[in-house]
């Protein structure tokens, strides 16, 4: 093949690529490995081995202290059901007087602690910032109610009951999720804003990276620049780019959330197919699995004309919703590799109230 040299340096050398390699090689990685064995305080194992060098009497004292602490914690937490004081996040006041549990954070209150089960509430004039060690930060706008649901290793879960949060997450994908009344937002390495109104309807807008939105098996992937609405009892709608044509957006909103009859639904789908731009392949890909069997060929044809399916993805396979083929087509769109979602989404995807 003519791209063999680009692929694996085999075949006839391409002079232009060779020139690029020669020019760019100066930026190549050339730093030897740090002395990882001198990084003494990083791994739990290291601390554990150090622990086991203690003398027996010291171990006994440590164990006794541990038992005493555990018993104290048990009895203390037992008197406050639903709140685990040991697992808390820092809350800083940004404006007004946000409330953490029963405590008000005034101008001179310093940093508050949000424990598991506790509620952070802002009125219309207050804002707050939650700091999550090695996970990210979340700014909470006025008029919001946010509860810390879970704070375990690799599992951080907030519930946004109402209002708006701006999340900047740098934890590995899938470690941070936010429940809303109508969907679960799973971070896949990103910056996003999530809004929930009083009816429980939500809107997620991704600024960087991408977010997975899911409820009851209904998945939406929202890359940077895209938004996705969600409604109670329905779940996440179809994501779209905000610069889509107004008629396209209007038709999509009605298609996702209004009860429409067959003919009207077909007309809305017709608008979506006719007004889709190349960039709206994002929306059409999602629609493949949301339309009826009868409507799917039309969506396939339009999507294929805007973003041809990669090798190995067939019309027949897509029409029968072959998952690997759908995933391969998604990967070819360039918004992110779907294995990130399949790997990290795990069992987060039901709101806490539904998994109990």
């Amino acid at each position, binding site marked *: 093949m003519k791209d063999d040299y680009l692929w694996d340096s085999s075949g006839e050398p391409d002079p232009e690529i060779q020139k690029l390699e020669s020019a760019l090689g100066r*930026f*190549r*990685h050339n730093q030897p490995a*740090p*002395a990882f*064995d001198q*990084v003494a305080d990083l791994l739990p194992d290291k601390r554990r*081995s150090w622990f086991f060098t203690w003398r027996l009497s010291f171990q006994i004292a440590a164990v006794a202290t541990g038992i005493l602490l555990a018993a104290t914690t048990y009895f203390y937490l037992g008197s406050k059901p639903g709140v685990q004081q040991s697992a808390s996040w820092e809350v800083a006041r940004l404006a007004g007087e946000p409330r953490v549990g029963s405590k008000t954070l005034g101008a001179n209150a310093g940093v508050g602690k949000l424990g598991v089960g506790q509620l952070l509430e802002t009125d219309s004039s207050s804002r707050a910032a939650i700091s999550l060690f090695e996970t990210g930060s979340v700014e909470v706008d006025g008029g919001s109610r946010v509860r810390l649901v879970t704070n375990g290793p690799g599992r951080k879960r907030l519930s946004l009951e109402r209002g708006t949060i701006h999340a900047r997450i740098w934890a590995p994908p899938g470690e941070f999720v936010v429940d809303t009344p109508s969907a679960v937002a799973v971070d896949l390495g990103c910056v996003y804003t999530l809004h929930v109104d009083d009816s429980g309807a939500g809107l997620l807008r991704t600024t960087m990276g991408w977010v997975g939105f899911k409820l009851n098996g209904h998945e939406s992937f929202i890359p940077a620049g895209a938004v996705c609405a969600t409604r109670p009892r329905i779940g996440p709608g179809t994501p779209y780019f905000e610069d889509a044509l107004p008629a396209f957006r209007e038709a999509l909103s009605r298609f996702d959330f209004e009860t429409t009859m067959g003919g009207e639904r077909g007309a809305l789908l017709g608008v979506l197919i006719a007004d889709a731009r190349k960039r709206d392949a994002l929306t059409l890909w999602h629609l493949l699995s949301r339309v009826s069997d009868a409507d799917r060929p039309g969506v396939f044809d339009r999507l294929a004309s805007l973003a041809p399916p*990669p090798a190995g993805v067939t019309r027949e396979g897509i029409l029968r919703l072959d998952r690997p083929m759908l995933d*391969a087509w998604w990967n070819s769109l360039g918004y992110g590799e779907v294995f990130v979602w399949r790997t990290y989404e795990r069992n987060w995807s039901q709101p806490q109230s539904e998994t109990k």
Partner: protein
Amino acid sequence: MASMERQNVTIPQVSNPTEDHGLVRAAREGDRAAFGRLYDRYARMVHGILLSRIPPREVDDLVQEVFLSALRQLHALRDIARFGAWLATITRNRANDYYRKAGPEAARTEPVLEKEGAERGNDHAQEQEAAIILELIRGLPETYREPLILRLVEGMTGPEIAERTGLTHGSVRVNLCRGMQLLREKLGQGAPVERSRPV
């Protein structure tokens, strides 16, 4: 971070997935030498991913930060066969974090590059050309610039990129070809270097 003592290690060009799994397993059990060998095998991937996203002057330090972060989190890795993909994700997140912490000033990647280029060699014209080409690649969509930098800068082959990052051969090959096509078009147009933050 930059002052951390370094060890001289030969960077291998050929990978062995089975051996990688053994190294990950050993590193999880506290074997620092094994983790050092993983660094040797994956440092080019980490370096290339970072170079596709953040200013070159910051990349070397961040490579070390990424590996130290991975060392801290290694116990949480569920599937050792996905070590490369996991490390790549940490790297991308760290690059995102760089912009969050550094603010808009960090978006103006060069002309520091020009100064850095001048320090690396004597032929200033060649250095400038290389800097311009790098900026052209960094101006491509994320899907394309990462594999292109891994291929053209780090010298990895397509199969190596796929194996290291956990992507499929088909995906990497398509992105390399499309990215190269876009780069050729830009080079053919004599496009000016856009001094902006990668999208």
